[in-house]
Structures are given as structure tokens and as C-alpha cells.
């Protein structure tokens, strides 16, 4: 009897470990798909849609190297044109406002806020691999997706968990749910991916703030990968140009 209990327990532990490894494996594969390119540049169109269906549009150019360097520069509307942000490793961020004529170091607390009035937080926009930020658990498979539950590793995260659906064959995310600290679902994101060369590109991400009934669509176009961008392209000097 004792042996059978032990064996059952052993199988349970092994099964749990297998589940954890599978979940981590899936999550890492998802990171590999999302962050495979060495560098990337694109034109980004951000459409903000309020609860009455009224739309506002922002346009920007974006370039990224690896997972921790990004330069984002608004090109429209006129009131925001030229405003740029530079994100570097270790939470170093700069903001450039053309009217001030100089860069401003911004504190890492800004990451908890929404990015430029959108439904994405700076944290959401961060290109850090999910496997580094979250501990995954495989909940189930659903059609052609794996459903993972992600718990943040950092207590500073604004979320208590994420539920992510990952495409079984191509390992890109198709859908994400965001839960606040009270475990209420507050946002959901729908992804559309397309293949550009050897990489999967998120051509559209639709983020919905369920509480405010507000939607942000982020559309990428003119995407170019592996152009040989260097670290010199992600400096304060470049930010001010």
C-alpha cells in the first residue's frame, strides 16, 4: 500500500515536472519565434478606438536589436512628431522632446504606465523574453493551440497572471489575457502573424482594455529584418538625430 502510494506520488511528480518542462519548452519556443531576428525595423501604425468607435491614429518608426534595445520615434500626429524613446538594457530609458532640444532620462517607474495613451503598458511593449519574465504552466490544448498560464517572476509586475494561447505548429502567440492583482481579467490581446522571409512577424496586435472598453491596434508595415543594425544605432546620439 505504502509502495503504491509512493509510486503514484512519484508518477504525479514526474508528470508535473513533465508538464512544467513542456510548458517552459513551449514558452521558449514562442520566445524563439518572436525574438528570432537579430534586428528589425518597421513602420508602426497605432489606432486607438474608444468605446464610441471613434478612432485616433499615431504613426511611428521603430527599430530594435535583440531583445533589449529599441528606438521608437513618432512621425504623426503633428503634436507628437519627433518625440522619441530609446530603451536600453537594465531599464535605462530616454525620452527626446524636440521642443526641449535634449534627451531626458526617464525613471523605470514609467514602465508601469500606459505607452503613449495606448492600451499597451511600457511593460507590455518590452521585448524581454517571456521565459525570463514568467513561470509557465500548461493548462490544456485547445484546437491548434497550447494554452499556458504565465505567472510573473517579479512582484513588481502589474499582473497576477497571463493566459496565452500558442500556435501548436508555428509557436507564435495567437491570444493573451491579462489579469490584475485581484485576479480580474483586465485586458486581452489578439495577434495576427505573417511570415516574412524566415521570420514570423506580428503584423497586427489588437489590445482591448475590458474595463474601459477601449481598443488599440498596433499594425506593422515595411518590416525589415537582419539589416545589420549595430549598437551605435541605439544611442542617445541617434535618439537626438
Amino acid at each position, binding site marked *: 500500500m505504502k509502495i503504491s502510494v509512493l509510486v503514484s506520488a512519484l508518477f504525479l511528480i514526474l508528470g508535473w515536472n513533465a508538464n512544467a518542462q513542456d510548458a517552459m519548452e513551449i514558452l521558449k519556443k514562442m520566445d524563439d519565434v518572436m525574438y528570432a531576428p537579430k534586428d528589425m525595423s518597421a513602420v508602426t501604425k497605432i489606432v*486607438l478606438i*474608444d468605446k464610441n468607435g471613434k478612432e*485616433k*491614429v499615431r504613426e511611428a518608426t521603430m527599430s530594435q536589436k535583440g531583445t533589449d534595445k529599441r528606438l521608437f520615434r513618432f512621425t504623426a*500626429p*503633428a*503634436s*507628437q*512628431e519627433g518625440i522619441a524613446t530609446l530603451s536600453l538594457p*537594465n*531599464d*535605462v530609458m530616454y525620452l527626446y522632446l524636440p521642443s*526641449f*532640444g*535634449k534627451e*531626458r*532620462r*526617464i*525613471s*523605470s*517607474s*514609467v514602465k*508601469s*504606465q*500606459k505607452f*503613449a*495613451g*495606448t492600451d499597451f503598458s511600457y511593460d507590455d511593449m518590452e521585448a524581454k523574453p517571456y521565459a525570463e519574465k514568467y513561470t509557465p504552466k500548461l493548462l490544456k490544448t485547445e484546437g491548434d493551440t497550447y494554452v499556458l498560464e504565465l505567472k510573473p517572476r517579479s512582484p*513588481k509586475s*502589474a499582473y497576477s497572471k497571463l493566459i496565452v494561447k500558442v500556435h501548436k505548429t508555428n509557436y507564435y502567440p495567437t491570444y493573451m489575457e491579462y489579469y490584475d492583482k485581484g485576479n480580474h481579467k483586465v485586458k486581452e490581446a489578439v495577434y495576427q502573424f505573417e511570415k516574412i522571409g524566415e521570420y514570423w512577424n506580428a503584423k497586427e496586435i489588437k489590445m482591448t482594455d475590458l474595463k474601459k472598453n*477601449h481598443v488599440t491596434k498596433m499594425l506593422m508595415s515595411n518590416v525589415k529584418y537582419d539589416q545589420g543594425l549595430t*549598437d*551605435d544605432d541605439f*544611442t542617445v*546620439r541617434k535618439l537626438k*538625430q
Partner: protein
Amino acid sequence: MFFKKMLNYKCISSFINDVKMKRINLIIIGAIALMFSANIAKAQDNANKLKFSGNLLTDERFLLQAPNDWAWNENRLTLELEKKFNNDKGKFYSEVWLRNIGLPRIYSNADLYNKNIIEPYNLEIREAYVQLYGFLTKNLDLKIGKQRIAWGTADKLNPTDNLNPYDLEDVLDFGRHRGSWALNLEYYFGRNFSIQAVYIPVFQPANLPIGIFAKALTPTIEMPPPFVLKGFTDEVLMPAFNLGESATAGAKFKGFAGGVDFSLSYVWGWDGFPIGTYTTITPADTFGEVNVNVQTSFFRQHIFGADLATSIGGVGVWAEAAAFLPENDVVMTTDFSAMLPPGAPGPGTEDSVVLKKEVFFKYVIGADYNFANGMYLNFQYMHGFINERGRDALNDYFFVQYQMKFFEDKLKITPVAGGFIVSDWGDIKNNYAIIYAPELSYMATDNLELNISAALFDGKGNNLFANFVDYNMLMFKVKYSF
């Protein structure tokens, strides 16, 4: 013969056909090449064309105290021109202000013939420069022309920002500078370090407040009894306009290490505010009224600066300091010889040092934090305001701002904004000032901003903002960007 003719004909016609085909091919190739080159040219044109942008601003203010005098009237058209060239390795930029500013000052019928008096206007080139990235070597940037060279990590209050002259026409917009015609070189060592050298050949002083603030920075003249001031005149002595006499030069070493942005700087130049150096007092009548003439001049100084900015535990932190060292004592000579009876002993003049040749420090420490709910808090402490000189004349300023954002940043409310000033810690209740400046800003459309704010003052004693206690005002601004 016939066949030969036929053959020849066939050869000729095939030849002609060949030629025609080749010609057609050439035409097609030529047309395709033309299309490509036109597209390339168009793409280059689009990338390198002159870009117009700018904004239209209306800034209106009236005093809260009856009869609610109009305190400020400004209608400004800002035009920005920008053109990139040389494969984005160069840029031309210009910013011009066209303004109707001030109120009609009509005193006679003759004034009605002058539109400049009816609708005062001015045209100002704020900046106009050419910039080259990778000049001579890939790590060297060059900027020539009228430019704003903004130094310092603090917000708006920058003791190390001393290359450009202060633009104090709107004293509530402290921290504003005018551009300077300058040669500006910056050399980059790797990605984290740079050294900058600036040469400004022609000195330009600060411009002082206008309108109701016109006397804000002018010290009052008090005559000892029984004398009474009747007339006042002044003159300003400018530095000579030559290579050595009027130039300003500066250098700055900037770096990033251990998560901290820092810089060290040096400026050798003229202080932008003149100081009285010769005062002549003469009798105006026999009843004790006097005329005073003050001659003011500028003084040279060395300014050593340092600043840093970083983020600690999510809190943005910055500090900035500057050590000012006048080149010489600034001496005020008071000539009252005309007041003395004939034959009276003594030189009739008296010298006093108004600014010693000794170092005085101005500095700013600040911090800010962004809350997850979109709120923002900013705090700064400053020792020594922009117009204060000398160790004993520097006051202490505490500024705070708390901002709330709503409706995806469409509405911003700043219910807490202002400052507390102390000019004498030994007698605070008689030497203080309080500024309270709440603000509400609303983006009616993507490019149209409406702004309502107030400026309320209270204070006593010898400090700038205590002079504004009668100028509580309501402000309304509209800004459209294009």
C-alpha cells in the same frame, strides 16, 4: 536573280525587323529605366524634401484683481523647416516665430497711422542651423548656426545651462533661452562618452520681462532722506565686439557608467544680466529732489558645472550644480560729488563691491515618480535662481508638481503645482514667497490643445516672486500643431 533579290529582301527585312526589335527593346528598356530613375528620384525627393511644420499658439492672461487688467496677449505662429540631406547624415533646421504680442499703446492720433503700434508684432529666428553627423570622421558631429544648446539634467531650472542667453520676456516661463550663433562640435568615444566644444563669437545679453512683469527684475532705488528721486536714466556698456572681447566658449564631457548619466562642463563667458558699476547723483532742484544716472555693464565669469541623472528603485533622480567665479570684483562707484557744497573735502565718490571675485554655488536636486494609475509626481529643490548672484544673495526654492492623466492622456490635470521660496531662513515669515499654479490641459483633437491655468502669488521680503503678489492671474492657451 529573283531568289537572290528575295533573299536579299528577306535579309534586309529581317535586318530591318531586327533593328526595329532592337529599337523597341531599347525603347522599352529606356522607358523602364526612366520609370525606375523617376521613382528613385521621387523616393529621394520624398526623403529629402523640405518639411514644414509648426504650431499656432494663443496665450491670453488677465489679472484676477479688479478691474481685471489684461496681463498678456500673445498670438504666435511658429514655423519649423527641416531638410535632411546627404543620406540623412546632414540636416538643416530652422524655427521662426511670427508674433502679435502685447497690447495697443495708442497715445495720439499719429499712433493710429502705425500698424505696429496698433498691433505690435515681431519676427524672431529662434534657431537656424546646419548639422552634419560624421563630419570629417564618423564620430564627430558639427552644428553651425543659431542654435539652442541645452545643458543640464534638471527640469527647466538648470544652473549649468549658461551658453545661450536667457529669454525672460515671460518671467513665468523661466528656463527659456534664446538660441546663439555658435560653432558646436561633439566627438563621441564609443557609445557612452562624448566631449563637446562650443564657441559663440558674439555676446548677447538676456532679454528682460515685458508687460506687467517689466519691473520684476529691476531693483528699486531708494534714496536716503531727505532726498527724493525725481529722474532716473541708465545706460548699458556692452563688451566690445571683437574676437577676444565678446566671445563665449564652453566644453563638456559627458558619459554613462554604472547606470548613471553624468557630465562635467566649463563655460567662460559673460553673465547675461548687467550690474550697475557707476551711479551719478545730481540735484534736480533745491527741494531735495535728485536725478540718478546708472551705468551698467556685464562681467566675465568662469562656470564649472556637473550633473547626473539615474533611476533608483523606480524613482528618477537628478542633481545639477554650477560653481560661478567672476573674473574680477564688480565694483560700484557712486558719484555724489554734485551734491556736495563747493570746497567740501573728500573725493565725492564712494566705491563698494557689489559682487566679489569669489566662488558661489547654485544647484538643483530633484526626483520624480510615475504611478501605475497614470499619475506623475515631480519635486525639485533649487539654491540660487537664474538672476541671483553672489554667495549672500541666493535664495532657496522648493518646487512640486503632481499630475493626473485621464482618457488615454487626453485630459491632464495638475492640481498641485508651484513652489515655496525662502529668502531668509532666520526670518521666514517676512522673507518667503508661495506660487500656486494649477493647470488643466485638454487635447480636443490630436493636434489641438486647450489649456487653462492660474498663477497665484503670496509673499514678503526680498525675492522675485514676492513682487508678484498683486499679479494673481488666470491664463488661457490654445495650441494647434501642424
